[in-house]
């Protein structure tokens, strides 16, 4: 139709403040949530689920720390202790941290940052949430059935002979794997096919680059976990013997299979965190991100190298010396793209107008904690050091610095950064800062002593210990209580902010430039009521904000009834 070309005028779309209609009141009742295909609601449902499981996993962690107060029994027996640490690990890894940033924040913001109305496959997105929920039910069933005592890695031959609920637990993880795969596929396709006009790959927010890299890992690694757990289940039920030496099998093969997924999975956990840090640091430094392409491509480099280093979990498992040397060597390579990122973030802050709001504080804490976690990882990758430190608390401290100090602190940065956009409400800045300091202190008091214990020879997963470690263990336990208090404060002020009346957030409280801030807070049902057009890099803070609010008219999003005959003109992707 002829009128379409006339409508193509690009103009600024001012953002309405305090909208009366948005995605939260677009539908009412439980059904409008449970069967929604709106990526924002699905993201929030994920967020609620992972917070629930973070709470469960956190309570288990507190129980573990209390048990370690005394060198021998404090309040639970050794079998219970084995089950509790297994559940803590499995819940935190599979139910909390893997879906945490991609499925909750990613789901919510990926289409918005692209100027799209939804992910490419909205029903698949809902399905992946339901699959996650079914997998979670299996996990809860395993807990009720008596738990699992193998550790979260489910190593054979113990896992096929223990008699605890390994089958239902691994089945649960197997099912959740599909959820992870479907989310990954959805994200890759959405980023490829649904970018706003003008949004080239070079104008993609770095959070999306990190989600893109993460999705590639999810798609390539997770099927391998699925087949591994399928083999494990068949081993327990039919006795197929792939991993059983008595039947001609090999338990080390299980470890290869397991870590071929689970090492890349470590990057599923941390790479999205990098993306949040890029957004937050640039926004709160009011400065163009330093080395955009290096940050973007280093995410992909990490995803690639991450597939080649799984053997560093098996230095003492009896793999050949040659492969041990190669894996150790390759492990050091992961440090390069990660180091590039850290350098770029710091260079971004250099001479920026740094605004120490809560998300930025978390981002700075992330830099500190993640660097410690990363450097100790290099130490563990060194062969001779690894033999000494293998399976000690040093390893425990290392991955908690990466996973909790890294991912969880970045997740907190992201939650605070996007809270006003997601809910339309502002949290109490003072309490948020107080809580962040408490969490930082609590975290270090908990895990710094574990480095010391580990290097002195305290093995991980042990129920009892010799008395010389008691002071360090007790310090660590006290730290876990401080952490608990910090999280309670975060929960309280965030909950209060939801119900307060006079704390409505503006559409762009931080003065950010990415597309998700160019719509109302909370966003409209279909994110934008026009088709956004992108001219600039999302970190071009020196350009006027009006140039980031451009778009093309289009009543209900991309295409209205009158431009059917030439729909391509309106929305042709660049």
């Amino acid at each position, binding site marked *: 139709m002829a009128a379409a070309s006339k409508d193509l005028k690009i103009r600024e779309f001012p953002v309405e403040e305090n909208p009366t209609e948005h995605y939260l009141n677009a539908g009412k009742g439980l059904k409008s949530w449970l069967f929604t*295909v709106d990526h924002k609601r699905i993201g929030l449902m994920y967020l609620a689920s992972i917070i629930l499981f973070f709470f469960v996993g956190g309570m288990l962690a507190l129980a573990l720390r209390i048990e370690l107060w005394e060198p021998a029994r404090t309040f639970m027996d050794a079998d219970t202790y084995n089950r509790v640490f297994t559940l803590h690990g499995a819940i935190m890894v599979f139910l909390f941290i893997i879906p945490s940033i991609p499925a909750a924040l990613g789901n919510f913001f990926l*289409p918005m940052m692209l100027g*799209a*109305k*939804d*992910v*490419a*496959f*909205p*029903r*698949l997105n809902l399905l992946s949430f339901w699959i996650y929920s079914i997998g979670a039910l299996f996990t809860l069933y395993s807990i009720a059935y008596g738990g699992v005592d193998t550790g979260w890695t489910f190593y054979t031959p113990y896992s096929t002979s223990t008699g605890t609920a390994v089958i239902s637990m691994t089945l649960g993880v197997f099912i959740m794997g599909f959820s992870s*795969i479907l989310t*990954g*596929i*959805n994200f*890759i*396709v*959405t980023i*490829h*096919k*649904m970018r706003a006009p003008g949004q080239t790959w070079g104008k993609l927010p770095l959070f999306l680059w990190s989600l893109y890299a993460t999705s590639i890992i999810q*798609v*390539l*690694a*997770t*099927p*391998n976990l*699925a*087949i*591994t757990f399928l*083999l494990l289940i*068949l*081993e327990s039920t*039919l*006795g*197929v*013997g*792939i991993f059983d030496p008595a*039947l*001609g*099998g*090999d338990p080390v*093969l299980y470890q290869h*299979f397991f870590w071929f997924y689970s090492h890349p999975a470590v990057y599923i956990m941390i790479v999205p965190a990098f993306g949040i840090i890029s957004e937050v640091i640039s926004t709160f430094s009011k400065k163009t991100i330093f080395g955009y392409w290096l940050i973007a491509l280093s995410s992909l480099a990490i995803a690639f190298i991450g597939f080649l280093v799984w053997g560093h979990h098996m230095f003492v498992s009896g793999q050949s010396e040659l492969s041990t040397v190669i894996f150790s060597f390759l492990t050091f390579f992961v440090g390069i793209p990660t180091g590039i990122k850290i350098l770029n973030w710091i260079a971004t802050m250099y001479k920026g107008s740094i605004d120490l709001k809560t998300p930025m504080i978390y981002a700075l804490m992330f830099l500190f904690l993640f660097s410690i976690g990363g450097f100790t990882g290099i130490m563990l990758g060194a062969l001779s050091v690894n033999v000494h430190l293998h399976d000690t608390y040093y390893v425990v401290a290392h991955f908690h610095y990466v996973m909790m100090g890294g991912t969880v602190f970045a997740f907190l940065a992201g939650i605070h950064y996007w809270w006003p956009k997601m809910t339309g409400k502002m949290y109490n800045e003072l309490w948020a800062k107080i809580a962040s300091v408490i969490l930082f202190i609590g975290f270090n008091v908990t895990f710094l002593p574990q480095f010391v214990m580990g290097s002195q020879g305290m093995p991980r997963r042990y129920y009892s210990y010799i008395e010389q470690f008691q002071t360090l263990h007790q310090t660590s336990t006290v730290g876990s209580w401080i952490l608990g208090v910090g999280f309670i404060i975060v929960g309280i002020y965030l909950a209060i902010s939801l119900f307060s009346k006079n704390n409505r957030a503006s559409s762009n409280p931080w003065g950010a430039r990415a597309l998700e801030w160019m719509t109302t807070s909370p966003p409209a049902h*279909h994110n934008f009521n026009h088709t956004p057009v992108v001219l600039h890099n999302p970190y071009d803070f020196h350009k006027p904000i009006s140039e980031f609010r451009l778009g093309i008219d289009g*009543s*209900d*999003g*991309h*295409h*209205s*009834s009158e431009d*059917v005959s030439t*729909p*391509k003109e*309106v*929305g*042709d*992707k660049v």
Partner: protein
Amino acid sequence: MANQNATHGESHVAHHFVDSEQQLDSSKLGMWLFLVTEVLFFGGLFVAYIVYRAWNPELFYMSAKELSTTLGAINTVVLIGSSLTIALAVRAAQLNQRALLSRYLIVTILLACVFLVIKYFEYTSKFAVGILPGEFYTYEGIDHPGAPIFFSIYYMMTGLHGLHVIIGIGLMVYLVVKARAGTYTAAYYTPVEVTALYWHLVDLIWIFLFPLLYLIE
């Protein structure tokens, strides 16, 4: 989803897509990615196959002789034929030949069923002599301590493949019902296209399984 939005000119285009082309491209890319995950899913079993064959070459040779090459070869031809008929079904959809579309789909379903029937007879003849997976293996015709391993791998690989055939049949039955109702036209045949992609992969995996399991010399 599509019918929620009354203002749409083309009812099959979901509300969040710009046009039919973007929707088809997205669906195809999504399916290709899914097929990548499928390849990696089977990849684990292929790795297990490689490891155990490298360790026990003579076992694999002895065990493969128990399998019927004739039945395997017939099944290979059947599946390749079904790949042809589903490709013709896509072509029929592109040319708007609705009757031909459902006819080709039905032929594909029948060929898939033939494959499963032959597989059923193969399995039952093995079960009859005690060749069962894992610890249920009782056959004594193969003089090798690791004898159950080959057949465990055989049952897992062909079983997982068979499961994919059954899922494919389910998808194609759905397509036939929809095609009869006139859902698919030259302007919209995305589900036919992506199902065909899936079916080609199922076929392709069998083309690898057949020589690996049946034709060991």
